[in-house]
C-alpha cells in the first residue's frame, strides 16, 4: 500500500514536472504566433532608428500637444449613463455566474475568455479609437453610484458621511499593485484559467473597490486606486475622443497624454504595464520555456530546495515577471538619470514623472503587438461562448456551434500589425517626450540634448519589443 502510494506520488510529481508549462501562456490558445522573420526584424529596427534620427532633426521647436484645445461634439443624456452602468453590472454578474456555475474546463466556460481576452485585451483596443469606454460600464463604480443614489433617496437628501481624503502619497500605487497582481495571476499562477477561481477573484476585486470607494469617495478612489479604471484610462489619453461631464469632446490624438497628472505611483504603473506584457512575450518563447529554457532551469533549482514542481514553476515565473518589470523600470531610470545631467539638472523623480506620459503609447504598442492575435482568434470564441456560457450545451442565441477561423488573418498579417504597432508607438512616444522637453527646458539646445537620452530609452523599448517577437526569443 505504502509503496503504491509512493509510486502514485512519484508519477504525479513527474507529470507535474513536465506539464507543458509554457506550451501556451493560456490553456485557451490553440495556435501561437510565428516569430517575425529576420528580414522583417532588420527592417523594423532600421525604420525605428531612421525615424528617430529624422525626428530629432526635424521635429517642431515649440510645444504643440501640451496645450491642445478640446471642442465639444455632443452631449450625453444622463439616462445613457445609467443604462451603461446597468449593462456593465449585468455583464460582470454574467461572467461571475458562468465562472462559478459553469463547466470548469477553461475553453468551455465564458469566464476565462471574457476576462483575459475581451476585458483585458479588447477594451484597450476599443479605448484607442473610442476613448475611455470602460468608465461608464465600470461595474463596481456603477454599483457604488447606485448605492449612493439609493442612500440619498432613502434619507431624502440626507448628508452621506464625508469620505476620507485620499492620501496624496498613495497616488496610483494601488493601481500599479493591482495590475501586477492581475498579471501574476494571468502569467504565473498555475490555476490561471480555472473559471471558478477567476470568478471568485473578480468578486474579491469588486469588494475591495467598493470598500475603497466607501472610504475615500467614488471618484477619488476610481481615479487613483482602481487598477483597471486606471489602466484603461491611461490608454484613453491617446484617443481623439474624450468623454467628460456628460459630453463628448474632440481633441488631437495623443493630446490627452500631456494632461496626465503624474502623481506618485504613475511611473510604477507604466513600468508594470510594459514589464508584464514583456514577460508575457518572453514566457511564450523557447528561450524561457524550452527544454533548456530559463524557466526549467529555475524550476529545477527550486525543486532541489524542496518545493513541489508546481510551486517551483510558479516561483520561476514570478521571478521572471518581476525581472522584466525591473528591467523596464531600469531602462526608464537610465534615461531619466541621463536627462538629469542636462541643463539646470532637475531632480530625477520630478523628471521621471514629467516624462512618464511618453510611455503610454509604448505600453499600448506592446499590448497590440503581443495580444492582437489573441484578440483576433480567441475573441471569436465569444461567438459560441455567449450562447453556451456555462459549457453545458445550451444555445441561447443560436451561435453555440460557431468555431474559430484561424485563417481570418494569416501570419503575414499578424507580423505587419505587430511591427507597425511598435514603430508607431515608438514615434508617438518620441513625439510626446519631445513636446514635453520643450516646456521643461528653457533653452531649445538643452531640450534637444535631453532628448538624446529619451531617444535611447525609446529605441531600447522598441528593440526589446521587436526582439521578444523574433526568433531569438521565440
Amino acid at each position: 500500500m505504502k509503496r503504491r502510494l509512493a509510486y502514485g506520488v512519484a508519477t504525479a510529481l513527474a507529470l507535474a514536472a513536465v506539464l507543458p508549462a509554457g506550451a501556451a501562456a493560456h490553456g485557451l490558445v490553440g495556435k501561437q504566433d510565428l516569430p517575425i522573420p529576420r528580414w522583417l526584424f532588420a527592417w523594423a529596427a532600421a525604420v525605428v532608428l531612421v525615424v528617430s534620427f529624422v525626428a530629432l532633426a526635424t521635429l517642431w521647436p515649440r510645444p504643440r500637444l501640451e496645450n491642445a484645445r478640446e471642442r465639444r461634439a455632443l452631449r450625453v443624456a444622463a439616462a445613457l449613463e445609467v443604462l451603461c452602468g446597468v449593462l456593465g453590472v449585468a455583464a460582470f454578474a454574467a461572467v461571475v455566474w458562468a465562472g462559478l456555475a459553469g463547466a470548469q474546463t477553461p475553453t468551455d466556460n465564458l469566464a476565462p475568455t471574457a476576462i483575459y481576452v475581451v476585458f483585458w485585451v479588447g477594451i484597450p483596443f476599443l479605448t484607442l479609437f473610442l476613448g475611455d469606454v470602460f468608465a461608464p460600464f465600470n461595474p463596481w463604480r456603477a454599483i457604488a453610484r447606485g448605492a449612493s443614489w439609493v442612500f440619498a433617496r432613502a434619507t431624502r437628501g440626507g448628508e452621506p458621511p464625508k469620505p476620507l481624503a485620499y492620501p496624496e502619497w498613495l497616488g496610483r500605487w494601488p493601481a500599479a499593485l493591482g495590475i501586477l497582481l492581475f498579471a501574476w495571476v494571468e502569467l504565473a499562477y498555475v490555476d490561471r484559467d480555472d473559471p471558478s477561481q477567476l470568478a471568485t477573484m473578480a468578486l474579491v476585486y469588486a469588494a475591495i473597490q467598493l470598500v475603497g470607494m466607501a472610504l475615500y469617495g467614488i471618484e477619488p478612489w476610481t481615479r487613483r486606486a482602481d487598477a483597471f479604471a486606471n489602466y484603461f484610462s491611461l490608454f484613453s489619453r491617446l484617443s481623439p475622443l474624450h468623454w467628460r461631464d456628460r459630453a463628448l469632446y474632440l481633441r488631437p490624438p495623443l493630446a490627452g497624454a500631456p494632461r496626465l497628472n503624474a502623481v506618485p505611483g504613475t511611473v510604477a504603473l507604466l513600468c508594470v504595464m510594459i514589464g508584464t506584457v514583456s514577460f508575457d512575450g518572453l514566457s511564450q518563447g523557447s528561450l524561457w520555456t524550452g527544454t533548456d529554457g530559463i524557466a526549467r532551469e529555475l524550476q529545477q533549482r527550486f525543486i532541489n530546495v524542496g518545493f513541489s514542481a508546481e510551486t517551483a514553476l510558479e516561483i520561476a515565473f514570478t521571478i521572471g515577471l518581476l525581472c522584466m518589470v525591473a528591467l523596464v523600470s531600469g531602462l526608464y531610470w537610465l534615461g531619466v538619470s541621463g536627462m538629469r545631467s542636462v541643463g539646470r539638472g532637475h531632480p530625477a523623480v520630478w523628471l521621471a514623472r514629467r516624462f512618464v506620459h511618453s510611455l503610454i503609447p509604448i505600453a499600448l504598442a506592446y499590448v497590440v503587438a503581443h495580444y492582437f492575435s489573441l484578440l483576433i482568434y480567441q475573441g471569436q470564441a465569444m461567438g459560441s461562448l455567449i450562447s453556451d456560457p456555462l459549457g453545458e450545451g445550451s444555445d441561447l442565441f443560436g451561435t453555440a456551434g460557431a468555431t474559430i477561423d484561424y485563417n481570418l488573418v494569416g501570419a503575414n498579417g499578424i507580423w505587419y500589425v505587430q511591427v507597425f504597432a511598435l514603430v508607431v508607438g515608438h514615434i508617438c512616444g518620441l513625439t510626446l517626450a519631445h513636446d514635453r522637453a520643450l516646456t521643461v527646458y528653457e533653452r531649445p539646445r538643452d531640450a534637444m540634448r535631453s532628448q538624446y537620452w529619451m531617444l535611447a530609452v525609446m529605441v531600447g523599448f522598441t528593440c526589446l519589443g521587436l526582439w521578444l517577437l523574433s526568433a531569438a526569443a521565440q
Partner: protein
Amino acid sequence: MSGRQRAVLLALAVVVVVVAFVVIRSTGGDDDETSGAATVEVRDAKPVGGVKDLRWKKGQTIDLTVRSDTADEVHFHGYDVHKDVAAGGSVRFRMPATITGRFIVELEEHEEELANVEVTP
C-alpha cells in the same frame, strides 16, 4: 538646431538604411527546409529525443506519424484534430497545411507535448 547637426543626423539615417539593406541581403531568406514525412516515437508517454520541431510551408501537406507504446489521444492543436492511439499502435496526421502559425501536438491525457509544428507562409 544648426544646419550641420541636421545634416549629420540625416546622414546617420542614410547609413542605417544602407547597413540594414546589406545585412538583410547577406543573411538571405529564412531557413526554407521543411519536414516532409515526419515520425514521432513515444516511449513511456514521452517523445523519444525530446520535443521535435517540425516545419511545413503553407500549401504543402502535413504528414506526421505518432507511434506510441502508451494508449492515449493525440491532439493536433489549432487544426484541432484528435486521434486515439492504442498501446503499441500508431496514428497518422495527413492534411493540407492551411493555417499558418505554431501548433502543439500533445499526448492529451498525459498532457505531454510531442512536437512543435510551424507552418510558415
